[in-house]
């Protein structure tokens, strides 16, 4: 049975009248890439800060590696790597010195640290920039440096708080590949983001947060099954009559049909062979059609249906 790495139980965090975390619970197993998904202000960063004991909280309990997490749990902290939302490096240190500084907060053995620093530099692909100062690096390279600073000490649990904000697609892909590679080496990952595609691409399990609450949790397939829409069929077709549309609406699992004189959109909830049944109706009435698409729901649709709003509505 997989070990529980992180256990958050009934966490409540208030900022005055504002409830940032509202009885939030979570359990993350060893070897997972766990995605915390939610719009800005949903409580992702507050959760991370509470998890790391950077913030006090009003109620609840946090356990990491089976032990209660407190501000002085240094034996737990040594196995945690953190990559913060903002790049946290010293402008006065070079790339290598920065990684060495942060690694040195965990590893005191100089020889071992030098080896770890070299490995981290290689891992994020900053070999050509070791003597550069941060202000000479591009946004993408800075993010990579930020990651190297967080992982150099070889932690067992890595928390990445929106590590790809303001990063170009090439660097973003490299970062995501790196995270998956770390995970393959046995590291448990907590990944917060408001980018659906990233979470969908790399996370093995996802919790959706909104207004400090966990509104859904599961694998991406499990989440998609939670919503009414399971398949959206789009067919390019001209001159459909009301009788055909009525027949479409009567098909099993179809809960919505829209037609705008060019495109027929059939929304289905569950069931198999929905596309075949829709095409059969058109053929029966000898209606010719053009391109046909069948799309499974995205996490964005999941989020939209669960929370009633689009994930990026509230982006700062």
């Amino acid at each position, binding site marked *: 049975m997989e070990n529980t790495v992180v256990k958050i139980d*009934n966490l*409540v965090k208030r*900022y005055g009248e504002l409830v940032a975390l*509202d*009885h*939030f*619970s979570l359990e993350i197993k060893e070897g997972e890439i766990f995605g915390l998904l939610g719009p800005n202000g949903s409580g992702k960063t507050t959760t991370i*800060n509470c998890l*790391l*004991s*950077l*913030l*006090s*909280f*009003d*109620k*609840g*309990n*946090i356990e990491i590696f089976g032990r209660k997490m*407190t*501000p*002085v749990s*240094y*034996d737990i*902290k*040594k196995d*945690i790597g*953190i990559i*913060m939302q*903002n790049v*946290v490096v*010293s*402008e*006065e*240190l070079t790339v290598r*010195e920065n990684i060495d*500084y*942060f690694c*040195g*907060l*965990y590893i005191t053995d100089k020889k071992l640290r030098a080896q770890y620093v070299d490995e981290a530099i290689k891992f994020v692909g900053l070999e050509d920039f070791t003597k550069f100062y941060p202000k000479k690096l591009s946004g993408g390279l800075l993010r990579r440096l930020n990651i190297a600073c967080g992982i150099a000490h070889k932690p067992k649990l890595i928390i990445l708080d929106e590590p790809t904000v303001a990063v170009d697609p090439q660097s973003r892909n490299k970062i995501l590949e790196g995270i998956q590679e770390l995970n393959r080496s046995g590291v448990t990952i907590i990944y917060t983001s408001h980018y659906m595609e990233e979470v969908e691409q790399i996370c093995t399990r996802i919790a959706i947060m909104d207004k400090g*609450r966990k509104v859904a949790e599961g694998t991406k397939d499990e989440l998609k099954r939670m919503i009414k829409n399971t398949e959206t069929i789009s067919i390019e077709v001209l001159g459909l009559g009301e009788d055909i549309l009525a027949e479409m609406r009567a098909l099993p699992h179809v809960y919505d049909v829209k037609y705008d004189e060019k495109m027929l959109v059939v929304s289905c909830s569950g069931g198999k062979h929905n596309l075949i049944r829709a095409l059969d109706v058109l053929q029966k009435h000898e209606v010719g059609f053009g391109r046909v698409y069948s799309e499974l729901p995205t996490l964005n649709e999941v989020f939209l249906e669960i929370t009633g709003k689009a994930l990026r509505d509230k982006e700062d």
Partner: protein
Amino acid sequence: MQVFKLFMKILKKNIFTSMIYVIVFIAISIPMAKSAAADKTFKDASLKIALFDEDGTAESGALREFIGRKHELVELADDKDKIMQALYFDTVNYVLIINDGYGEKLAAGETEGLFSTYHMHDSYATVMVSQLLDSYVSSVRGYAAGGSDLASAEAKAADAVLQEAEVTIARNESGGVLSSSSASYFRYLAYILVSVIISALCPVLLKLSKKEFRFRTNCSCMKSSSYTMQVFAGSVVFIAVVWLIMMVVSVIQNGGMFTGNAWLAVLNSLVYTLICTAIALVICSFEPSDTVVNLVTQIVGLGSSFLCGVFVPQSMLGSGVLAAAKFLPAYWYVKAVEMLGGSEKFDGSRLAMYLLIELGFAAALMLIALVVNRVKYTGAAIKLPKLAAEPQK
């Protein structure tokens, strides 16, 4: 020692501005000390005077000889343009023409129409020579009226007028344990210490206490106490080095090691260094930007220096200014320096009181910094969570 090393690296990058203060201070303080020493000698002023004798008598000759004994007689062409030019370019300070009939008029006791002159209006040279001539003529008349013949009256008058008094420069050095130049050095040190410590220490402390940076460090397994101790050690090393440099310069400037109670000035400067560090901590607790730090450095450095008598002795400041200055630590520092410099009688117990007041300021400032930091981090204060039995919604 990761944090200590980082402290030093950040300090290294920010030390340039502070070093300018130190270098300029050292460059200025040593010549100033030399000039202060040179001020102890007095030399009577000698002017360059061009003299035209239109009288040509023994009396006018005696006058020429009299003037030549005190001042330098300069040859000049008897041409008005050249005379004016010489006065303008300061190659001559005064042009004296002994009018025809001078001898007769002097013998007759007349004082009008003896001389014609060219001079710069209202110059000190004009006043000096006019007074000299008046004294001479009055003395000659006095001796002549007393029965001396004219020649001996002129000789006696010349001796009397040119008699030199022994001059000593009076200084308020009643029992000072510091030389006046050392006292000046230690006074100016109040400005330089506060400027250097704030301008160098604040940027480092601000960078190390930046919220994200502290959060990131708090995530690690480095103990908070270790982090604080390393920052403290870095600060102590820096201020100790600054203070030691200043003390080495003070010894060089003093011309040798301090002796006796002069060491109290060194102790006073050490206490003031603590105050400057505490001021830097208070400033940092408000997390100002670099621009604001520079501004505050100037305001605190120059403001307290002008108000508390760093640049001018406290005796020259108004009572209102001094009353306000008492609420600033620099006032007590300067007061101690002035006592050691001899401006007031040395009194060990009063000096101890000044030092204690300074220490009180340092403690109060440290307390303010602590309180501000505590208030600031209340929201992020780490406290152990309380368990709740409420079910999840």
